[in-house]
């Protein structure tokens, strides 16, 4: 197990390293100069040169990349804005704030959004999926399948504003979505996130319904399930003890990937509801050609996806005794 984890973590670091190189090259490959956005109206080559110098963009790309890596691992005292301990992504071009601090500042929003939504969509999605598989072929199954089909084809940027218009602005049943710090005001943390949770989880729940149903049905047709039934075990026992466990593997795999990418920022949801999370930060970093922030968000999101992939792979061993990690 330990060897497996070590190997996977080394692999993840290599992937992150490659990803940072690609991001770096892409940023400089796009013909867009961050200095232009800061240069003001009466922009001229001198002012641009000055901004390049202040940002360190006048150095060769390889040197800039080396500085980036160096700061990331060892931190830096070279920034005019102040010290920058490791992991140092530097200071944002646009806001002049430390990137790592900004990431950590926005993380609670994204984590709250993700965990709340995950709880909702796992319970609703898996529940409905199992029910549909249990009652396969009945009206319940058909309704659930058709409903899931329709809902999973909807989009957050359609459902979100619709929910806001009906549930918040017309009926006033719910609070306007907002992020309030859990430690300061748990009640408004909860009420402010209800609608984003519901909307985000609706679409995921529909997908998990379909996945759980088909995975379950597949399992129920397996020979060991038939054998168990033939041995006289009850339908419920076989359903939950035999088939359910087997059907979890693909679900856990997808769940790991989903959770990882949501932790990296639910861009459209955060944007639609104006939540200050990592997704909004990613959009902002692109708009303002903000290289340090862009690299920070990119690598952080990628680490999340890699981390959850490793967790999922490790989890296989617990779910399915046939899997051996070595």
């Amino acid at each position, binding site marked *: 197990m330990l060897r497996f984890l070590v190997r996977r973590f080394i692999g993840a670091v290599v992937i992150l390293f490659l990803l940072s190189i690609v991001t770096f090259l892409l940023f400089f490959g796009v013909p867009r100069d961050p200095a*232009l*956005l800061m240069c003001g109206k*009466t922009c001229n080559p001198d002012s641009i040169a000055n901004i390049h110098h*202040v940002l360190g963009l006048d150095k060769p790309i390889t040197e800039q990349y080396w500085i980036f890596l160096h700061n990331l691992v060892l931190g830096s005292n070279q920034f005019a804005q102040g010290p920058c301990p490791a992991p140092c992504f530097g200071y944002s071009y646009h806001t002049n704030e430390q990137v790592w601090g*900004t990431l950590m500042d926005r993380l609670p929003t994204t984590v709250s959004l993700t965990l709340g939504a995950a709880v909702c969509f796992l319970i609703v999605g898996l529940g409905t999926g199992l029910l549909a598989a249990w009652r396969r072929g009945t009206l319940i199954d058909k309704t659930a399948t058709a409903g899931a089909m329709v809902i999973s084809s909807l989009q957050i940027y359609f459902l979100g504003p619709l929910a806001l218009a009906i549930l918040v*602005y017309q009926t006033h049943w719910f609070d306007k979505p907002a992020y309030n710090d859990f430690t300061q005001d748990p009640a408004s943390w909860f009420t402010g996130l209800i609608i984003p949770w519901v909307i985000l989880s609706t679409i995921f729940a529909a997908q998990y319904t379909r996945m759980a149903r088909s995975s379950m049905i597949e399992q129920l047709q397996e020979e060991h399930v038939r054998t168990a039934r033939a041995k006289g075990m009850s339908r419920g026992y076989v359903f939950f003890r035999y088939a359910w466990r087997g059907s979890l593997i693909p679900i856990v795999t997808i769940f790991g990937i989903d959770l990882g990418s949501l932790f990296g920022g639910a861009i459209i949801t955060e944007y639609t509801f104006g939540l200050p999370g990592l997704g909004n930060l990613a959009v902002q970093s692109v708009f303002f050609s903000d290289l340090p922030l862009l690299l920070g968000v990119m690598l952080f999101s990628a680490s999340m996806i890699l981390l959850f992939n490793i967790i999922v792979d490790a989890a296989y061993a617990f779910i399915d005794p046939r899997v051996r990690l070595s």
Partner: protein
Amino acid sequence: MSRGGRHAYGALSVLAAGALVLTGCSKGGSDSGTDGKKDQENAKRQQASIKFGGAADSTGPAAPVPGAKTGGTMEVLQRDSYAHLDPGQIYVSDQMSVAQLLHRGLTGYKATTDDGSGHEVVGDLATDSGTTTDGGKTWKYTLKDGIKFQDGTPITSKDIRHSVERLFAPFINQGPTYLQQWLANASGAAYRKLLPDGPYKGKHLPSSVLETPDDKTIVFHFKSPHPDLPYALAMSGYAVVSEKGDTKQRYDKAPVVSGPYKIQSFKSGKSMVLVKNPSWDAKTDPIRHQYVDQFNITFNQQYETSTKALLADSGADQTGLSFNNQVDAGNLSQVLKDPKMKSRTVSGYQPYVGQMNINMSHPAMKDKTVREAIAYALPVTPFVRAYGGTDAMEVAGGLISPTVSGYDPSFDPWGKKKKPAGDPDKARELLKKAGKLNMKLTFGYINTPEGQQYSTAMAAGLKKAGFDVQRQEIPSETYYDQVSKLNNNYDIFHTAWGADWPSASTVLPPLYDGRVIADGAQNYSQVNDPKINSEIDRINKITDPVKSAAEWEKLDQYIVKDVVNVVPTGYYKQTQIAGSKVGGLVYDDVIGGVDPRRLFIK
């Protein structure tokens, strides 16, 4: 005002992308036939000529807003967080709006009417708008008594000197550069050589440039006359910075303020709370009020979100508004049609004027008859439609916006206000006369959704007049780079420009002075006309702002009508909305948005 070509583009592209994510292409908008009436309203609304006020005009307190009450908390919904709060770094409109509440400068704009259209430049920290005895080369300012920073320390001429000198420090690189260039008598970024490290390494500006003989007096010395100094000093970028409290880069997040409000908390990217600044004395301030107890500002509110929340008008949003968010294009026509909703909106001009540049460096464009044919043929309707109809864009006659002193609403040499769809017949006639029927015309357009939309229809209009139009797409990221290259191959291309203060001196010289033609400069049409050049020099020396405004307008008319290197297209407009309990809601033409200084809760 704030953003010029590049900045404007930056902001507009953000806006465009935002609209894309949320609403797809649902840009509606009305272009119904109420233009005549609107024009009349707008003609009335135009900026009256601005004068520079004396000591009496500069004495506080400001005239009370009719019906104003004190107290209460106002909710402010903003799209972008404030990247900069250090005056030296402030140059974009949302930061300039909030700066009205936080920072004070030597001069400022006092509203002379209650509708936000009349203004006067007065002394803010200074006792008057400035005195010059030699036609604008030497300017003297005296500070008022009783002016203090939020920590209670009095504001002295040392702070003003420090505020000016730190503009030369390398880390100040986002704000306006007028004053620095005038002091150093240099163009571009060459002014930095005058004081390369700012005041931080013990060096100061020589007294031949900046004098502070005592705690109250400041004297600016320029090599050439700059009668516009009172305007320039009113920019938020030249507001006062506390010498004692200067934390350099960190000042940007926590400035020591001098205005009626101070920052209680600022969570960058999330929220900001402003509360009353007890060290601010209304008696010293002819411009601002302090009616509201507290402003709660929330960021990340897209236009659609803030519009819907304010339209719903429930709970805290009843006392809510946005300083800068517009009513989004999708809701605009509906909001303005409903009298109940409309009563909670204010509309006005943004500082930008759109213009189609004709590339004067191309041989084919040197024929004035051809340029006149373009001017007659060019349809402006597609441009107006692309931005959401006449509520968001008004057909332009000249290059000077209605928010700029000297604007002439009757000027319309190419009949665009009457025939916004263009006059292809007349254009065809001219083209025939020049013997250039079916000549090739390369049209470089920006590939934003708006650019795609209007360029197609504009090209069709030009085709009807007998041009063989070749559209060439330019990526929005590099648009202004491409069109400001001297050897670009576009015959015509569209740009927008906004004045930095309500005088055409920040519009006509940078755009049409033939001596500033260079790669990356803003003379996009590459016009070099001896009369334009000499008129710029002459008008720049006029010290009376009312007189110079009239002269700038004459030059505007000469450029548009006689030189025809550019065809004006539209004045950008916007509509903003507030909750039903917001009082003192006025669109200020100089701020280019809601005036935050006069707000109160009903």
